[in-house]
């Protein structure tokens, strides 16, 4: 194991333990911020010490002991009784209870995830909240990945935790009737964290993708019979396996059809295939299973040369009926261009044109530009590609599109 790996392993164990303990305390006290406070110093000490000293035999007990000691110190320092003391005392008792059975602390992380992704929590804050409470990421790290000023992210996290306490949000896995919808919110939050890590190219991005995949694995282990959880993990793994091939040595964008498949992570793809097979074995397909199946078909097309475009087109059709999302229609149009030609694809894209959301949706203009170019409608292609360049937030994509424009003018 290299030094970096040892650090990473120690960090993983610390985050596992921390998340379990926060979830355990929060589920009992309904006080997420309080649970984090009680453990924060011990967690910081673990992140500092474990990489050098090694991971203790019982990480939970280690964290609890240190947290308990800090609280006793804090209590001793207080001269007068305060409202905070009562809270700390309660926390200490909870920790004692838990310490008695350390190693077998009930894992309430699933309940905490459902609380964080509750409909009463602002949609955009669900992923940051899960990243902080389950993984112990700091507001600063999360802010960097979500491109929000750290102070703003900190305030929003505090507000969301207050809401969990004050709005009576339950710490429980929802009942059967409610489960599909509530599970979607959890899956969407984790996948949102992944796509942040996928589309943003800042330093914090690949790490966030890693954390999201880890959350996906955790969710699958906590809900082993839930096909959509497996579908989502598979979807993330398909994308992640191709990450090394997305940029060439110069950092330029490489589209899927020109990626060097030797750079793909075969092991990760194998795992994704396996998860997808397990997920689809049990019947009706959900959104994430369908999207993973589409990625599986793309992978097969590149690896075996088989024409899987008709399958991709059909899968997008299912997905479209399920989600009614214009983004899915856009993707179906791109697939349609491969089976029925650019003319048919453009006709489908035209049905999206009245949708206001397409106005500044970069992939729409890029797809439109490519299709128009294929049809030799140069002026229109030029206009659409220019808009796509203006709307791009990623330099590599911008440069790729500029090359397409140059080809258009030269060719």
């Amino acid at each position: 194991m290299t030094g970096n790996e040892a650090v990473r392993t120690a960090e993983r164990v610390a985050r596992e333990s921390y998340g379990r303990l926060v979830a355990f305390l929060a589920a009992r006290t309904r006080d997420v911020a309080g649970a984090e406070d009680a453990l924060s110093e011990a967690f910081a000490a673990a992140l500092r010490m474990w990489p050098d000293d090694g991971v203790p035999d019982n990480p939970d007990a280690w964290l609890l002991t240190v947290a308990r000691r800090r609280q006793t110190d804090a209590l001793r320092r207080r001269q007068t009784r305060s409202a905070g003391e009562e809270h700390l005392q309660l926390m200490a008792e909870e920790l004692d209870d838990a310490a008695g059975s350390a190693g077998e602390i009930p894992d309430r992380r699933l309940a905490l995830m459902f609380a964080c992704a509750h409909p009463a929590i602002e949609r955009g804050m669900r992923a940051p909240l899960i990243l902080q409470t389950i993984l112990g990421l700091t507001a600063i790290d999360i802010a960097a990945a979500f491109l929000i000023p750290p102070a703003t992210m900190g305030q929003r996290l505090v507000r969301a935790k207050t809401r969990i306490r004050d709005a009576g949000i339950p710490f429980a896995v929802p009942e059967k009737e409610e489960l599909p919808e509530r599970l979607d919110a959890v899956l969407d939050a984790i996948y949102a964290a992944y796509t942040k890590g996928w589309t943003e190219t800042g330093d914090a991005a690949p790490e966030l993708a890693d954390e999201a995949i880890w959350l996906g694995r955790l969710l699958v282990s906590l809900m082993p019979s839930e096909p959509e959880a497996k579908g989502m993990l598979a979807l993330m793994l398909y994308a992640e396996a191709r990450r090394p091939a997305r940029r060439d040595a110069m950092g330029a964008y490489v589209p899927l059809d020109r990626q060097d498949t030797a750079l793909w992570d075969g092991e990760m793809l194998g795992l994704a295939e396996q998860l997808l097979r397990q997920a689809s074995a049990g019947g009706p397909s959900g959104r994430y299973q369908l999207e993973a199946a589409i990625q599986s078909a793309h992978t097969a097309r590149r690896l075996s040369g088989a024409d899987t475009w008709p399958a991709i087109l059909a899968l997008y059709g299912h997905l479209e009926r399920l989600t009614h999302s214009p983004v899915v229609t856009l993707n179906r149009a791109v697939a349609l261009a491969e089976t029925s030609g650019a003319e048919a694809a453009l006709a489908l894209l035209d049905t999206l044109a009245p949708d206001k959301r397409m106005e500044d949706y970069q992939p729409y203009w890029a797809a439109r530009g490519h299709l128009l170019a294929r049809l030799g409608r140069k002026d229109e292609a030029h206009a659409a590609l220019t808009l796509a360049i203006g709307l791009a937030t990623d330099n590599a994509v911008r440069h790729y599109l500029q090359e397409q424009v140059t080809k258009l003018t030269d060719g």
Partner: protein
Amino acid sequence: MRYMMLIHHDEPAMAAADQKQLWQDYAAFNEALNKATGASGGERLEPASSATTVRTSGEKTEVLDGPYADTKEQFAGYFFIDVPTLEEAVAWAKRCPSSRFGSIEIRPLHVPKGDWK
């Protein structure tokens, strides 16, 4: 929410860039901005060396050559956007080619509370 996007340039860094590429990027950005609902095109300023700064204090008026603050990045232009969230404002700042040669300051426009009638 309406935001004013204040562009600050590191002028030497900007001058060192590939100018043809830069103005192509800017042309594309302006196209996108023109098409966006609620956005309004901005203005570009002459370099900071052309600035004059006036300050009055009591009876005294001071007129100075140059910009208000002598920093590495100089105020260079602005544009307006109208988007629901700060995250979308950040996306527009990333799209602006100037973000690569300085910084974009995002400022929400003040909305008077209107409690006088």
